[in-house]
C-alpha cells in the first residue's frame, strides 16, 4: 500500500465514522422505543436534530470566556482523532501508530477535562454539579478502561490497537478467561463513559440525576450540535473498540481490499447487534443512585485488574 492510498484510506475511515455515528445513535433510540412499547422516532432523527441546531442562533451567557466557545470544537477534534485510530473496517491505518491505547484513553480524558472545564465556565450551580459528577465517574472509569486495554495488550505483547486486533483476530478460537473479565469490565465502562443507564440517563433533565446533560446545559445551537455529534462519535468509537477487542473476526487486513465488503457487512451486523443490546440493557436496568456509581465503577476496575492478574496466572 503506497502512502497516498494509506492516507486516503485513513481519511475515508475517519469520515465514515463521523458520518455514520449519528445513525447508530438513531438506531439505539429506535430499538429502545420498540422495547418500551413507544412509537419509534425516525432512524435519521439525529441528523435532522443536528441540521436544526446548526441553523439556529447561538445563545451564550454574557460572562462566557473563550474557553467555553472553543470547547465544542476541541471535543469534536478529539473524537475525530479517536475515530481515526480505532480499527473499524481494516487494520491498515498508517496514522494509527500516532496514538496507542494509552493515548486513546488520553484523548477521551482530554475531551472530558475540557467539557468539565467548560461546564464550570459560566458559574451556574448545575454546571459545577455536572462537572464534579463527570470527573467522579471519570476517575474510576478511566483506569478501568486502561486496565481492560492492558489485558489485551499483554496478550498481544503490544499497545498498538491495530497490532492487538491483528493478533486477536488470528488466534485460535479459545476462551481467554482474562479477556472474559476484561469484556465485562469494558461493558461497564462503556455504559458509564457514554452517560448511559445505569450511571446516567441521556434523556433526563431531572436535576437530581443528570450528569452529562448538566454539563452541557448552557450550550445551544451550533455548539450544542457539535457536542451532540461528538457524543455520537464517542459511542461509536467505544462500540468499535469493544468489537475490535472482543469480536474482531471479519475485519479487513492490511492490503486486502477484497476483504472490505465483508468487513462492512460484519461491522454493520455487529453494530446493529451491539446497539440493540445497549437498548435492551437500558430498558431492563434502572438508574443507580449517584453514590452507587462509584461502587459500580470500582467493580469494573477490580474486574479489569483481576483479568490482568488472571492473564499472568494462566501463563504460569
Amino acid at each position, binding site marked *: 500500500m503506497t502512502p497516498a492510498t494509506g492516507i486516503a484510506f485513513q481519511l475515508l475511515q475517519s469520515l465514515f465514522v463521523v458520518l455514520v455515528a449519528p445513525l447508530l445513535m438513531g438506531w439505539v433510540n429506535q430499538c429502545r422505543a420498540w422495547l418500551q412499547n413507544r412509537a419509534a422516532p425516525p432512524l435519521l432523527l439525529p441528523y435532522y436534530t443536528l441540521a436544526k441546531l446548526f441553523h439556529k442562533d447561538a445563545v451564550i451567557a454574557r*460572562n462566557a470566556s473563550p474557553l467555553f466557545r472553543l470547547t465544542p470544537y476541541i471535543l469534536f477534534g478529539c473524537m475525530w482523532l479517536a475515530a481515526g485510530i480505532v480499527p473499524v473496517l481494516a487494520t491498515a491505518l498508517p496514522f494509527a501508530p500516532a496514538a496507542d491505547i494509552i493515548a486513546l484513553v488520553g484523548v477521551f480524558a482530554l475531551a472530558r477535562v475540557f467539557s468539565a472545564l467548560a461546564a464550570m465556565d459560566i458559574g451556574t450551580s448545575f454546571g*459545577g454539579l455536572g462537572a464534579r459528577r463527570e470527573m467522579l465517574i471519570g476517575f474510576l472509569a478511566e483506569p478501568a478502561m486502561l486496565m481492560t486495554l492492558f489485558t489485551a495488550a499483554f496478550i498481544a505483547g503490544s499497545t498498538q490497537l491495530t497490532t492487538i486486533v491483528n493478533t486477536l483476530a488470528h488466534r485460535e478460537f479459545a476462551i481467554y478467561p482474562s479477556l472474559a473479565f476484561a469484556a465485562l469490565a469494558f461493558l461497564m465502562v462503556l455504559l458509564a463513559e457514554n452517560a448511559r443507564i445505569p450511571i446516567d440517563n441521556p434523556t433526563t433533565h431531572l436535576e437530581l440525576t443528570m450528569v452529562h446533560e448538566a454539563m452541557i446545559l448552557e450550550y445551544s445551537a451550533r455548539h450544542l450540535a457539535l457536542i451532540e455529534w461528538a457524543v455520537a462519535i464517542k459511542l461509536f468509537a467505544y462500540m468499535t473498540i469493544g468489537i475490535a477487542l472482543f469480536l474482531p473476526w471479519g475485519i479487513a487486513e492490511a492490503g486486502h481490499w477484497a476483504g472490505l465488503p465483508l468487513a462492512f457487512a460484519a461491522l454493520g451486523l455487529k453494530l446493529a447487534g451491539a446497539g440493540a443490546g445497549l437498548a435492551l440493557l437500558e430498558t431492563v436496568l434502572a438508574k443507580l443512585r449517584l453514590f452507587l456509581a462509584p461502587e459500580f465503577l470500582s467493580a469494573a476496575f477490580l474486574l479489569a485488574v483481576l483479568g490482568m492478574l488472571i492473564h499472568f496466572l494462566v501463563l504460569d
Partner: protein
Amino acid sequence: MSAAPLPEALLCVAAWLALGAGSLVPGAGAWFARRAAFPLGALVGLGLALIGLLAIWLPPAALVLPLGLPGLPFHLRLDPLAGFFLLLLGAVSAGISVYAHGYFADEAPGRLALIGLQFHVFLASMALVILADDAYLFMVAWETMALASYFLVTTDHHQAPIRSAGFLYLLIAHLGALAILLAFGILHGGRGDYSFAALRAAELTPFWSSAAFLLAFFGFGAKAGMLPLHAWLPEAHPAAPSPVSALMSGVMLKTAIYGMVRVIYDLIGGLRWEWGLVVLVVGAGTTLFGVLYALMQHDLKRLLAYHSIENIGIILLGLGMSMVFVGFGQPVAGALGLIAALYHTLNHAVFKALLFLGAGSILHKGGLRNLNDMGGLIRTMPHTALYFLIGALAISALPPLNGFVSEWLTFQTALQASVLKHGVVRSLLPLFAATLALAGALTAMCFVKVYGVAFLGQPREPRHRAHAPAPGDALDCGIAERIGMAWLAIGCFVLGLFPSAFLLMLNRICVGLLGHGLAEGTLESSWLWLVPTSSAQASYSPLIFILVIVAVTCITFVLVRRFYHGRVRYSHPWDCGFPDQTSRMQDTADAFGQPIRHMFGPLYLMKRHLPGPDDPAPRFALKIEDRHWVWLYLPVARLTEFVSARIALLQRGRISIYLLYSFLTLIVLLVFAR
C-alpha cells in the same frame, strides 16, 4: 572529543554566588537586587542549562579544587547524569528568576537584599550538589542548600505559623541528612577516602549494601517528600514566597532524586529486585496519598505541595520498576524505567514550577490564597489563566503535553512485565500501573477543580466582583512574570511534542549508569515517532496527535461558518431557567472534593461542624488533617521530649556537679580504656 565543560559550570556557580554577594553590598545592594540580580541570575541559569546539555553528550570531566579542609580537597565531576540535572536546574531556574524579578520588585530594600543573597546561594548550592564528586563536598553543598532554603521559607518570619513550618522543614531535612551521612559512612567503610570513586569501588556484603540502600532511600526520600517523611512539604511550600516555592518544588526536590539515582545506581550499584519492591510500595503509597490529600485542599499552594508529593511518588514508581528489572537481569526494561523516572523528573520540574508561579501571581496581584475566595480569574488575569491552564493540562497527564509522555513511558515499563520470570513480581507490576492510572485520573479531577473554581465561573470575592466585567488585564501580573511563565509553558510543549530527542539524551545516561540502554537504532530512526522498544510494540506521535486535533478544530470552525453562520446572541445564563443566580451557588473547592471525601473517608482525619436546624448563625466548618501526625509524628515528638527531659536531669547548673561528672568520666576511662 573534548571533555565536559566543568570549569565553565563552576564559573556559573561562582557567578551565582557573586550575584548573591552583590545583593548584600551596603548601599547599592538593594538597588542591584531590584534591578539586575535576578535577570543576570536567569542568564547564568541559561548558561548552566547549555553546559548541562553539552555534558550529556561529552565524556565526563573531573576536577580537584584545593578548597575545604586540609587533606580533604573538593572533588568535582561532570558526567551525563550530572549534566541532565544541571540542564533541569538551569532551564527551570531561568524561568523562575525572570519571574522573581517582577515578583520581588516591590519588596522593602532590606528584605530584598537578603532574598537576593539567599536565592542565589540556594541556586549555587544546588548546582554544587549536582557537581560534587566526594561525600564531603556533597554534604557541605547539601546542608548549604537546606539552610538557604530554610531562610527563604522563613522570609515572613514574623508570622508564627511560618516559623514553625520552617522549623519542621529544617528538622526533617536534618533527619534526612543524617541518614545520607550514615549511608556514605557504610560505603566508606573506614578507608579514609571519601571520593565517590572510592565509594563506588567499595565491596559490600548484601546485608551492608541493603542497609546503605535503605539509608540513602529514606535520607533522600525525606528531602523529596516521600511518605511518611512528607509532613514538611505541605507546610513549607505555602509558607515560602511563590518563586521560592517554585524553586523548592520544581528543582530542590529533584536534587533528592538526583541523590537517589547517584547513590543507589552509581555508588552502591548491584541493584537488587527486593529494593525495587520497597521503592515501588513506598512510591505507590506516596502517589495515592498525595493526590487524595490534594483533592481535599482549598489553599492553592498547599494543594500544589500535595501534588508534588504525588509526583515524587510517580517518579519513585518508575525508579522502582527499573530496579526490579535490573535486579532480574533485564537491563533494557530497566533502562526504560529509569528513562521514564528521569523524564518525569524533568517534566514535573517544569510544570510544577509553572503552577507555583501561577499561584504566586494570584496571591500577589489578587491577594487570594484560598480557592473558595477565587473565581472568574480568567477574565481579570487572562495571561496567568492561559499559562496556568497549560500547566494544569500538563500535570493531569493529558496528551499531547509533557506529563503524558512520562506517564506513557512508565506504563510501557510496567507492560514489559512479561519478560520477568518471577511469577509474583510479574503480576505485581501491573498493579502499580493501575495505581498510576488511578492517580492520573484523580489528578485530572483535582485540576478541573482548581481551574474551574479559581479561574472559571463568577468571582466569589467582593473585590474581584467589583471588577467584573473584565477591565482588560489590569489585575494581571507584569511583563517579567509573564515571560517567566511563558518560558516554562513553552517547556511543557517542547517536552511534550519532541520526546524522542529527550529520550536519546536520557538513553546516554542509562548507558553510563547501567551499561545498557534502549536500542539506539529505533530511537534515532525518527524524530516524529516516540518508539521506545519496537514500533510493533508501542509508538506515540504527539505531533501528529496535536496536528489532527488542531486541524479538525480549525476546519470544523471554518466549515460551520461557511455552511451555516457564526451568529451569537448574548444573554443571561440559562441554568434550567433558575432566575436568581449568585456566585455563592457555585461549587466551592470543598464541594468539588466531597465525593472523594465520601469514598475515601477513613483515610482522612476529619473534623466537621455541621450546623443544626436552629443555629442562629449557621456555619459549616471542615478541617482535614493528616493521619500521619497522630500515629507517627506526635508520638515521636512526645518520645523525644520525654527522653530529653530525662537527659536534662544531668544539667544542674552547679559547677561542682559538672566537675564531679568530669572526675567520674576520668575514672571510668582509666579503668576501662587502658
